[in-house]
């Protein structure tokens, strides 16, 4: 064994297996993120409704699923729903009968609850004066939402959303308890076969890190594009020679990202 606690040979040999695990991790991240976000919109509208009979169920949903520990939520969906005969015999069993389906359902519910609050906070942050100006122009409520409120809410909520996504990715590591072999489960398996406590776990950590930072860079670029209205314009005085300009810009970008 080298000075490093990492067995490079083992790391190289287990890479294909780890990458297969990463693929599962990406899948159980991306799908619930999509479904959760889609679900968050109607729940958020209900939550913001003035009528109590609309907002109360949404509030209960958020309080319940934000409060429920993810691990227990997963157990309940995976072991608990199977006890319901009606569900077992219905068409939904296609979903709840597979561990993968259960994971997607549990993670989606969890994410939707968090996203409802992120979305609500972002929408409430839109200055009322700007909404009034849109109303005064005779723009319909639906159009105000699509063209004024949402574009601004996305800008206000992007950082909170990024946080939520990053912690969500790490949260997916528990899915092995219902037999899904994600990245963490693969690493654990290799550990159990080789008794090398460091190599597989550190390799998995590196892959998580890479995945999360890829997401972060994506958010960074998205945020920059959205913030173009606040950016300093390149005034002619600061214009640089074309060759160096590219390099400078690249190094600026790199600096900003690190």
């Amino acid at each position: 064994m080298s000075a490093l606690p990492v067995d490079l040979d083992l790391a190289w040999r287990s890479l294909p297996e780890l990458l297969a695990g990463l693929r599962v991790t990406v899948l159980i991240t991306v799908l619930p993120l999509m479904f959760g976000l889609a679900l968050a919109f109607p729940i958020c509208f209900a939550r913001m409704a003035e009528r109590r009979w609309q907002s109360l169920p949404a509030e209960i949903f958020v309080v319940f699923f934000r409060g429920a520990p993810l691990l227990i939520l997963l157990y309940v969906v995976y072991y608990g729903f199977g006890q319901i005969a009606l569900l077992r015999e219905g068409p939904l069993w296609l979903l709840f009968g597979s561990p993968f389906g259960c994971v997607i359902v549990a993670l989606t519910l969890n994410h939707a609850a968090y996203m409802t609050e992120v979305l609500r906070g972002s929408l409430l942050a839109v200055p009322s004066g700007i909404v009034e100006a849109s109303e005064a122009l005779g723009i319909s409520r639906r159009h105000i939402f699509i063209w004024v409120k949402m574009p601004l809410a996305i800008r206000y909520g992007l950082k909170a959303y990024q946080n939520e996504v990053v912690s969500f990715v790490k949260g997916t590591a528990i899915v092995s308890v219902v037999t899904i072999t994600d990245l963490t489960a693969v690493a654990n398996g290799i550990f159990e076969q080789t008794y090398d406590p460091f190599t597989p776990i550190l390799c998995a950590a590196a892959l998580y890190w890479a995945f999360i930072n890829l997401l972060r860079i994506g958010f960074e670029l998205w945020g920059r594009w959205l913030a173009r209205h606040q950016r300093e314009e390149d005034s002619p005085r600061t214009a640089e020679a074309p060759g160096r300009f590219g390099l400078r810009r690249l190094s600026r970008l790199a600096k900003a990202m690190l």
Partner: protein
Amino acid sequence: MKPSAETPGPLPAPEADEPAIGLYGVVKLYGRHRALDGIDLEVRRGEKIVICGPSGSGKSTLIRCINALERRDGGRIRVNGIDLTAEEGTVQDIRQEVGMVFQHFNLFPHLTALENCMLAPRLNRGLGKEQAERLAMRHLERVHLADHAGKYPARLSGGQQQRVAIARALCMEPRILLFDEPTSALDPEMVNEVLGVIEELAATGVTMVCVTHEMGFARRVADRCVFMDRGAIVEQGPAQDFFANPRSERLRGFLAQILR
């Protein structure tokens, strides 16, 4: 309602002597506070009215009731021959007729000056991109900002932002313009560029109701000045009389305060 770009839209043809705006016994309550305590005011077509009064007197509330940004609690409001009811349809109809400019500009920060002006015509009147762009450029030229069309609001000075806001309102080609303290949030050196633009507009025959404390502007532009205090109209009259011979004690006190 999607009328074409050229015609201002299907309207119940208003009688010639029908006032542009009619407020009859309008009441607005905030809890137990009577922000508007039975306002009667008729604005003729093409008339320029300046409303002034101490803060909290209900000036802003009054003009915000005209385009239903505030819902009144009593009385009747009639704009361009349309009775303002709680129905969403009449509210939208009236808002197509009435442009509004705010104290704090309220531009869309994520859109350029040009896009700010294009949004409502595109959404409300279904104009195509090019048509809307032409319309927007025409009105940006009117407020002398054609050179800044591609800039985002954050890059513009307060005075420029307010002129974009005026152009944005003009793009809906309203017959009535409401100004809610359009220069109060501006640095002193920018007040005149905005007032200048409003004066140019006044010369075009559009109906105007302007809440302002710029008394020089009121003298030059207003056909009639209205003084409000505690939710009621205390005194009104032609601009000359209004300043030269204030009848009520309260207006005399107010003028002494602001002209000091």
